[in-house]
């Protein structure tokens, strides 16, 4: 094919195409078709994913929930998290194994996804130990209080010493010192004698309730070791006592 013939050939194609286009345009103008109906495509259904990392925790630890969504206008994670944004992450610390559900809602409907976080149960607590002797002592052994210048066991002291006696009878290996104390009003010397009789009265009463005398030792401190240092009756009453001290 010569150059001239190829030019002709191409020109001829263009002409033909132009004629065709013109021919069509003329045809529509002639009979306009009805306008196409504007029908919107159906909205996409939301999609959502939810993952937990790690999926297993110990009690007290946390796991991270991560989610992604499309075509959702509202997302919420249950239980406990609530409304969230389209994508994100949050930490959760469930106390028990929990399946989290994310619900994505949009114009196209709703979708859900779930992620489970399992929580290892803590090791069972060691069985509660029996209370120690010291704990029992603190709970059950009570001091006896006295009236001014008296070494008689009062009614309230009888109640206190009854409980105290039960402790000693239940724990015959426990030994105690009964300290006799006095308030500051008497003399140093007289109070040493009075404290001696208070301690002896407490011992005698406990023995009368069945406590072994060999468990109980006595000492008088008179007014030398007061519990309370003020100069009033409230304080003096605190200082007039038979005070039990564990000796072993």
């Amino acid at each position: 094919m010569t150059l001239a013939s190829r030019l002709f050939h191409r020109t001829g194609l263009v002409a033909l195409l132009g004629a065709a286009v013109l021919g069509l345009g003329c045809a529509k103008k002639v009979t306009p078709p009805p306008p196409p109906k504007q029908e919107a495509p159906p909205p996409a259904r939301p999609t959502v994913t939810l993952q937990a990392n790690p999926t297993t925790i110990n009690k007290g630890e946390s796991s991270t929930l991560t989610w992604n969504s499309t075509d959702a206008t509202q997302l919420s994670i249950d239980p406990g998290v609530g409304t969230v944004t389209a994508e994100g992450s949050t930490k959760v610390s469930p106390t028990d194994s929990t399946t989290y559900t994310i619900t994505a809602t949009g114009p196209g409907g709703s979708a859900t996804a779930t992620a489970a976080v399992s929580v290892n149960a803590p090791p069972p607590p060691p069985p509660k130990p029996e209370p120690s002797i010291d704990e029992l002592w603190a709970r059950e052994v009570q001091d006896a209080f006295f009236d001014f210048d008296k070494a008689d066991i009062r009614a309230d002291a009888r109640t206190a010493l009854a409980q105290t006696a039960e402790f000693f009878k239940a724990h015959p290996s426990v030994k105690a010192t009964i300290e006799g104390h006095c308030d500051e009003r008497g003399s140093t010397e007289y109070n040493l004698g009075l404290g001696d009789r208070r301690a002896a009265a407490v011992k005698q009463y406990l023995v009368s309730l069945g406590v072994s005398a060999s468990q109980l030792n006595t000492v008088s401190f008179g007014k030398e070791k007061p519990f309370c240092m003020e100069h009033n009756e409230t304080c003096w009453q605190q200082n007039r006592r038979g005070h039990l001290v564990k000796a072993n």
Partner: protein
Amino acid sequence: MLKSATRCAGLFFFTAVVLLTGRCASGQDWFRTGTGLGQAKPRLAIADFAARSDAAKPHATLFTQVVRDDLQFSGILDLASPSFYPSEVPTVPSELKAPAWVAQPTNANYVGFGNLTESPSEVTIQAWLFDVRNPSSQPVVGKVYRGGPTDLQVRKYAHEFADEIISKLSGGLPSVAQTQIAFVRSTGNGNKEIWVMDYDGANQHQLTNLHSIALTPRWAPDGSRIAFTCFAPYKGINSPQICMYSIDTGKVISFPRFAGTNITPAWSPDGAQIIFSSSMQGNPELYVCDVNCNRPKRLTPSNGANMSPVWNPKTGQTIAFVSDRGGTPQLYLMNADGTGATKIDLPEKGYVIDPAWSPNGQLLAFSWRRPSDDYDIYVMDAASRQLVELTRDQGRNERPSWAPDGRHIVFESTRTGVGTRQIWTMLADGSQPHQLTFTGHNESPNWSTH
């Protein structure tokens, strides 16, 4: 009315007693004798002792002051105020111009004077007392003291010189200038230790170091030991025990331990026996034993608490003590073998504690809390039961102990503040109260017997 009349009369009589203690056979006598007494006390002037060098000046001042304080304290003489003295002061007898001291305003009967020489290793003190109304006579006292140039030594010499003067002017009455007072000091951590000080409060120092509670020190009659009550747990026994401190060795020496509460030791007049309160058999009773206390013998049979025994220092026959066998603590007397216990009746009830015999065995000092009052010190004539109140409205006053001169009493008082006990002395008529301790809590003073 009766009470106050007794008190006033007692105070008046008592001033006389103070002068006559030791001369009268019985308490009844001294009350009667006292009313007729018109004798004036001798009047003394103690000139400033001269320092022979600048180095001796502080000790010259100290010596002069201690002598004056001792004489003032004695209560048996009048000390002319130094501001009345002539300007020319003798330093040796040849310089004494007697008429100037006899003249008003000094108006002295006796003049003391002398001088001090001091080197780094020694102080020498020459000291005289002259009767300026008999200027040609020999010195009443003439002494030379030589020793280490310390405050303590100079104080000791001053006390010795004052003792000489008091002995000469009183016709041999014992003086207290060289005596000491044992007491209990609490150091703030709850511990109480036995301390001792000179009678004037100087030279306070700690004796025991038990890190515990020590109470009720009592000098042995010869001054070689102090018996006291101590809490010093040992081999499972933590109750109070009788403890013994040796002045000679500076140590606590062994003493038998007993079950129960063992407190308030006291000495027999000859120092051979100890009496104390013990609940070793259950109830606080009085026991007596020799100084080794091998077999204590029980003296009291009672249901009450018995403590604070004191042996009559003159007769050795009577023991005063405290017992609440009648309900509240009261004073009792009994024979030294435990027989014949009788209660001392007082005009009112209340609490009666801390008996202390005067050296002549005629007077009992004690503390008494009357029903509407605080503890106060009283003195009673043991024979006539006449009573004198020595303290009043001055806090709580307890634990009197007599000076060996029978004219002074040391005691503890809260008068400087509630809850703060300090040690004071006074004349045995209640006059001239003088505070000896100022730091910490101090209690339970006991005056050495010589």
